[in-house]
């Protein structure tokens, strides 16, 4: 009997205290993250000619990547993070007939975060190790990690990013498949996963009930930077794509190139609000 009495008395208190929390929880805002690509400042489109180095043009056919662990940081040094995205797939392979879609970019799915001012923006390029231990077979069709086109069974890894296209090696104005002018960079494996924290000059302010748009612009040309004085063309610090036209990750050399290309995502990325 005493027990029942105690329960009856404590129940309203419990209800009241949980009610209290409600208004506090509502102070959240939406953040939309939109990815866009450019090539040396110009809108990036597949099936379009760009200059790679003087006298050698380049044409892309695919450009996509996994992004992960995107979160907002309260303070520069703090570990107080609000996660926006655990993992998503960004496909920026819009072609010359899809210019307006390329201008709009690809928006990733985000969660609501507590309103407030944030100093840092953290982003992972690729599939982080914990998720990279899974495989498409662990997901139902429709999940971003269920796509078998981005999984490498022999290496037990997702392909974090695909950059494919052609370079006009003999500068004859034609991109020849049969002459081996194609390149295919499939970047993956735990070793090449890259994370970056961006501290924009103005803090990122999320307001209660409002939607904030954050643009992430990637300069695809910068992905080919080769500061390591290896694998580069003579006069530029750019990957010598004529010789190194692919990285599928299972040769020592390819892994070094893949690491550098993935690392370059940090440099190639600009945040705009």
């Amino acid at each position, binding site marked *: 009997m005493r027990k029942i009495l105690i329960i009856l008395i404590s129940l309203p208190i419990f209800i009241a205290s949980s009610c209290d929390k409600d208004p506090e929880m509502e102070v959240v805002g939406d953040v939309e993250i939109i990815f866009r690509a450019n090539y040396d400042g110009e809108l990036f489109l597949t099936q379009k000619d760009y200059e790679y180095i003087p006298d050698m043009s380049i044409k892309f056919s695919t450009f996509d990547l996994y992004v992960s662990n995107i979160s907002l940081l309260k303070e520069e040094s703090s570990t107080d993070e609000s996660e926006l995205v655990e993992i998503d797939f960004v496909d920026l392979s819009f072609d010359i007939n899809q210019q307006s879609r390329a201008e709009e970019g690809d928006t990733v799915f985000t969660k609501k975060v507590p309103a407030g001012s944030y100093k840092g923006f953290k982003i992972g390029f690729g599939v982080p190790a914990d998720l990279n231990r899974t495989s498409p077979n662990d997901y139902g*069709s*429709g999940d971003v990690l269920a796509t078998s*086109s981005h999984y490498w*069974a*022999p290496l037990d890894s997702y392909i974090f990013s695909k950059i*494919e296209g052609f370079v006009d090696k003999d500068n004859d104005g*034609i991109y*020849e498949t*049969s002459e081996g002018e194609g390149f295919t960079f499939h970047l993956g494996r735990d070793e090449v996963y890259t994370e970056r924290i961006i501290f924009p000059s103005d803090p990122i302010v999320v307001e209660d009930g409002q939607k904030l748009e954050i643009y992430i612009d990637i300069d695809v040309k910068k992905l080919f930077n080769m500061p390591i004085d290896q694998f580069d063309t003579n006069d530029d610090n750019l990957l010598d794509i004529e010789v190194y036209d692919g990285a599928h990750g*299972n040769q020592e050399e390819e892994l070094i190139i893949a690491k550098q290309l993935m690392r370059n995502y940090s440099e190639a990325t600009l945040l705009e609000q």
Partner: protein
Amino acid sequence: MYKALLVSLLCLCVVMLFTCKDKTKPPAPGELTHISYRPKPYPYNLPEGFPRFEVPKDNPGTVEGVSLGEKLFFDPLLSADNTMSCSSCHFPHLAMTDKKARSTGIDGKEGIRSAMSLINVAYYREGLFWDGRVKTLEEQALLPVEDSVELHNSWDEVLNRLKKHSEYPALFRKAFGISSIEEMDKYLAVKAIAQYERSLISGNTKFDRFRRGEAVLSEEEMRGYELFFDASPDLPDAECGHCHNAPLMTTNEYLNNGISEAFTTEDFTDKGYGLITGNPLDNGKFRVPSLRNIILTAPYMHDGRFKTLEEVIEHYNSGGKHGPNVSPLIRPLNLNEVQKRQLIAFLETLTDPNFTQQN
């Protein structure tokens, strides 16, 4: 008190008697409620290491539905002159294909494309057909019946025949719980066919067993596997696995694998995916087909242009033909004769004995 109880008991008996009598009465014409409707969920036994696929909420698989679908699939009643069924172009012992470059319908008219294998078709959520023009199996199954180069019939006529049939009305009742023959319609027929098609799961090839650690590949097959998937740093990359990835042996993407020479996007005789998306840069792209049971499904490609696997390998080895949107994964492979043999030896491990026998 007693009296009241007695009266109500009596009433109950009378009511029960009436309903009893009702049961013994023959059902009204077309009525099916006397047939029991107790559907059992169909166990889609997915092989180990296979992804899950989506089953539409309004058409969950049942044992009764799959078996009705199977009967319909093999029934020539679906065609105008009772000569052809779905299985006339999708033979079970040929991995659900027909050995023809292009399929021929009941009037001897040739279609423009090669019949596709239906194994693991439940997984193709990126669209069906070589060009992805249809989204679901239910939608797809409506088409062959009225297609002039296929069964060239009308659904009205097919339903006439099904309703008059000695077995179908009961089978529709058991699968879908309809209460009268009048409720039989084409949408239920295609639901059943789709359920049957979803049950065609192949995961019992030597290669599957190798992946599960239950079989060993021969030396030749193993080298072929390594070439196919770029699994050995010491061997060249034949690039196949990028598009024909395990376990389904396809990534389901729409790509141009360089089989047709084209200088502009208008040069493709069959525009394929481009006709569906309206983007000329998709012209000449086709859905990457699965390579399961590939040694049984000659001739090859959407129009059956290659008669043998040797011709297919020659094509890929050459680096393909010029085209404005050929995938860069198509490039000269420089494989020697031994390596070409090894690739074919590997392709031979993709045969599933469950789809090689006559029904």
